[in-house]
């Protein structure tokens, strides 16, 4: 964009040039008119006038040329409004040229004819006749004067040489009526003179022309003009006496007289003026035509410049409007057009500015609303992301609209990235999703859009109890709503309820069963002691076996009751930073390789971080798991137990995984689902509480337990414990705090 200062300077310069051009042209034309029509003396102005007028025209040409070049450049660049300006200029110029040309042509014609009409042939002929008549009258007068001079000369000749010229000459002058009568000897010697001039002025000397005429004709007569518009007749005759070189010349000077003198002067003046005018008419016409041409040229140039000016003034608001519209189309709502005038275009400009302001305000509102909506959406997303409840939003046609992270984790199914896909398609690859979809479709078939149902879904990590609630979304004019599925994992809740129930049972059993066991055992032993010696050997053996059985069963029952007590008991957690590898080694050492006992192999990650756990609980977990495996491997030849540790990523966190794997007979899917429940066992012996206690203890640490098992291949129990990645072996305190928080 051109800087404002440069634009202002250019505009001012153009104005100054325009004023200068107009002034020069007008002054030049005024003077030119004066000079062209004035047939008198005009001094040395003409050249300057032409230069001034020419300079004015040149300035106008420069201004027009500049405007034309700018217009052509604008047209080439297709600047807004350029074509309109071009059309306006063309139209104005076309409108100007035609009448101007007509006026010019007719002016030339009338000018020529008008000037010619000044000179009438009859007037010219009359003037020539007047001149001839005047000359004839003057000739008569001159011849009369010559005759008078001749008479005087004859008288002098007759009187001879001895005559007293000083007395004769005045007489002869008076008789002839001459103003001056002089007698010359040759060209320069004055013999005598007589004049009516009292001052005594010397007589006019004979001219070469006079002498030549005398030599040729012996007489001379001429009408001579004087300085003060007077005329005199000069006559001269040769006297007959005297030698050839010193011939006497009698010269007479006659005034024309009071009547003839002014008339002669008047005729002379008029004839000269008319002749001059007649002679000057061709140059005069040329002068008029040049002046007229200059006027027309100047008018044309001024009009063309005015056309540019008017076109610019007219097209400028339109140009601004086009530029403003383009800017608005590109999203620039800061554009404001310069205020228009009081005409319709000005009204249009004002309306445009109002419209832009309203658009800008509307857009600002829309942006604010959009930002607000975006904020709300972000908040909802953040809330959804942090919810432990899974949320899946579906369209009416059961395509996925959105889902949160918890939903993905609960169902072990990525939803994000699958937006727009039918949930049925995902269900074909995921049994848990399949169960959800089947439940949803079941209710939809019944026409139920608001429902709540507990669903047990099967996952790789085991069965989960989910409460699935469905709500219909309100529809809009664009979409007809959809559904929101809210999934709550109540597995832990149910487990806790079960645990609480079992704990209660355990306490009651411990209380109700444990108390009579000791009297039973003591009674049995007393019976044996008292009766053994009183009965025969066979009966004694029977008694001994029976009491032995009672004591053993009471012991077994006490163990069972103790186990229940252990299960129900929940002492306070005592978290310390431990190296799990060390703990595993300590526990594994308790199971040395023995005959018909499987080998416990270790595969421990040396880079395992320290982790905050309750050592007693964790030791029990490990014992339970290893013992479980060993019991499952009893009487198996190639039995082996592998305890391994590793760092794993799980649920976007950092976890330590302890895996206890055996190559035993494995579990059926039904057993696998219930294996962590109390009193569930696949072994011939045991309380069925081992894995239930493991699960309980691990969950007290905020960890997870999963079981993978395949009949005939083996079983693997995985324990996952969370640790903070930022905490290594050197940041025990932080890690401990973090785990404490999780436990809490």
């Amino acid at each position: 964009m051109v800087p404002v200062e440069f634009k202002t300077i250019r505009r001012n310069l153009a104005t100054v040039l325009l004023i200068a051009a107009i002034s020069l042209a007008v002054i030049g034309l005024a003077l030119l008119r004066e000079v062209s029509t004035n047939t008198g003396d005009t001094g040395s102005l003409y050249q300057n006038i032409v230069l001034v007028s020419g300079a004015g025209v040149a300035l106008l040409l420069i201004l027009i040329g500049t405007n034309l070049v700018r217009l052509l450049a604008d047209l080439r660049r297709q600047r807004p409004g350029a074509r309109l300006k071009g059309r306006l200029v063309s139209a104005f110029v076309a409108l100007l040229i035609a009448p101007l040309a007509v006026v010019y042509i007719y002016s030339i014609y009338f000018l020529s004819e008008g000037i010619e009409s000044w000179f009438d042939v009859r007037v010219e002929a009359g003037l020539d006749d007047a001149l001839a008549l005047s000359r004839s009258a003057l000739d008569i007068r001159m011849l009369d004067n010559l005759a008078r001079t001749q008479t005087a000369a004859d008288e002098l000749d007759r009187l001879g040489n001895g005559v007293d010229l000083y007395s004769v000459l005045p007489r002869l002058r008076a008789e002839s009526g001459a103003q001056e009568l002089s007698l010359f000897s040759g060209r320069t010697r004055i013999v005598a003179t007589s004049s009516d001039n009292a001052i005594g002025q010397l007589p006019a000397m004979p001219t070469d022309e006079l002498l030549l005429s005398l030599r040729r004709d012996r007489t001379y007569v001429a009408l001579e003009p004087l300085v003060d518009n007077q005329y005199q007749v000069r006559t001269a005759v040769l006297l007959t006496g005297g030698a050839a070189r010193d011939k006497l010349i009698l010269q007479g000077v006659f005034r024309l007289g009071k009547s003839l003198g002014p008339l002669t002067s008047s005729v002379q003046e008029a004839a000269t003026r008319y002749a001059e005018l007649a002679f000057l008419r061709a140059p005069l016409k040329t002068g008029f035509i040049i002046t007229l041409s200059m006027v027309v040229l100047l008018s044309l140039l001024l009009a063309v410049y005015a056309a540019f000016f008017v076109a610019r003034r007219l097209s400028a608001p339109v140009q601004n409007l086009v530029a403003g519209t383009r800017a608005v189309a590109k999203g620039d709502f800061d554009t404001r057009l310069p205020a228009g005038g009081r005409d319709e275009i000005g009204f249009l400009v004002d309306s445009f500015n109002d419209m832009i302001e309203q658009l800008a305000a509307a857009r600002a509102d829309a942006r604010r609303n959009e930002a607000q909506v975006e904020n709300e959406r972000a908040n909802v997303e953040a809330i959804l992301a942090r919810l432990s409840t899974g949320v899946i939003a579906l369209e009416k046609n059961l395509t996925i609209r959105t889902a949160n992270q918890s939903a993905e984790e609960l169902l072990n199914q990525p939803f994000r990235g699958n937006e727009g896909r039918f949930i049925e398609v995902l269900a074909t690859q995921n049994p848990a999703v399949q169960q959800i979809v089947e439940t949803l479709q079941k209710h939809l078939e019944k026409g139920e859009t608001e429902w709540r149902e507990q669903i047990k879904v099967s996952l790789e990590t085991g069965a989960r109890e989910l409460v699935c609630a469905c709500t219909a979304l309100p529809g809009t004019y664009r979409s007809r709503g959809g559904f929101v599925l809210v999934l709550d994992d109540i597995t832990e809740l149910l487990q806790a309820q079960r645990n609480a129930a079992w704990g209660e049972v355990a306490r009651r059993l411990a209380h109700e069963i444990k108390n009579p066991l000791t009297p039973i055992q003591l009674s049995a032993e007393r019976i044996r002691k008292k009766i053994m010696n009183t009965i025969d050997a066979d009966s004694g053996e029977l008694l001994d076996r029976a009491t032995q059985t009672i004591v053993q069963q009471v012991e077994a029952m006490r163990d069972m009751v103790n186990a229940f007590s252990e299960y129900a008991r929940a002492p306070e957690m005592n978290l310390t930073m431990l190296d799990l590898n060390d703990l595993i080694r300590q526990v594994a050492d308790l199971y040395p390789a023995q005959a018909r006992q499987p080998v416990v192999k270790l595969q421990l990650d040396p880079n395992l971080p320290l982790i905050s756990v309750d050592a007693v609980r964790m030791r029990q977990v490990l014992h339970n798991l290893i013992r479980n495996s060993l019991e499952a491997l009893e009487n198996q030849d190639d039995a082996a137990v592998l305890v391994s540790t590793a760092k794993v990523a799980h649920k976007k966190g950092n976890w330590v995984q302890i895996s206890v794997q055996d190559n035993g007979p494995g579990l059926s899917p039904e057993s696998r689902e219930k294996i962590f429940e109390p009193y569930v066992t696949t072994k011939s012996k045991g309380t069925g509480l081992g894995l239930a206690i493991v699960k309980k203890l691990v969950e007290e640490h905020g960890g997870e337990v999963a079981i993978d098992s395949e009949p005939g291949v083996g079983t693997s129990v995985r324990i996952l414990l969370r640790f903070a990645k930022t905490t290594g072996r050197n940041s025990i305190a932080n890690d401990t705090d973090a785990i404490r928080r999780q436990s809490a």
Partner: protein
Amino acid sequence: MTPVKAETEGRFEVVRADTRLENGTWLADALVDLSLDTDTQKALQNGVPITIELQFELVRKRLLWTDAIVLEKKARIELRYMLLSQRYVVTYPDTNTQSSYATLYSALRQIGLFRDYPLVASELIDDDEYEVALRAVLVKEELPGPLQMLAFWRGDFSLESEWYRWNLRQ
């Protein structure tokens, strides 16, 4: 109207010029050959007065610098044709004198005989070397406007002689 003969070319030429000291004044005499071209003659014989100017320059010669014009003088002579008396009138505005002639030749010859023109008083100039320059010019600015226009556009009435130069003290 007086007919004009076949086309002729005008020419101004200073044939001779000199200066002489008389009564403390340097007087200039010149012989200038003047002839008018056809257009000028035609204008003259149609009543248009023409003015001939004898332009004098007194130049001080300098050895180490450009010459300096110390004096410029112009003597104007007006020539006009009287239709009634059919005589050419020569007027000297400086002295308010005039004379008339039956032929243009006589009138131009009279104008060309330029005598006793007081150029400069001797006390006004020092002993340096001075040069006098003279040329004769037809004064276009004295012509009527329309003729000036022709003179401007077509170069008509452009009559002037070369500069004739001589030492003041010959």
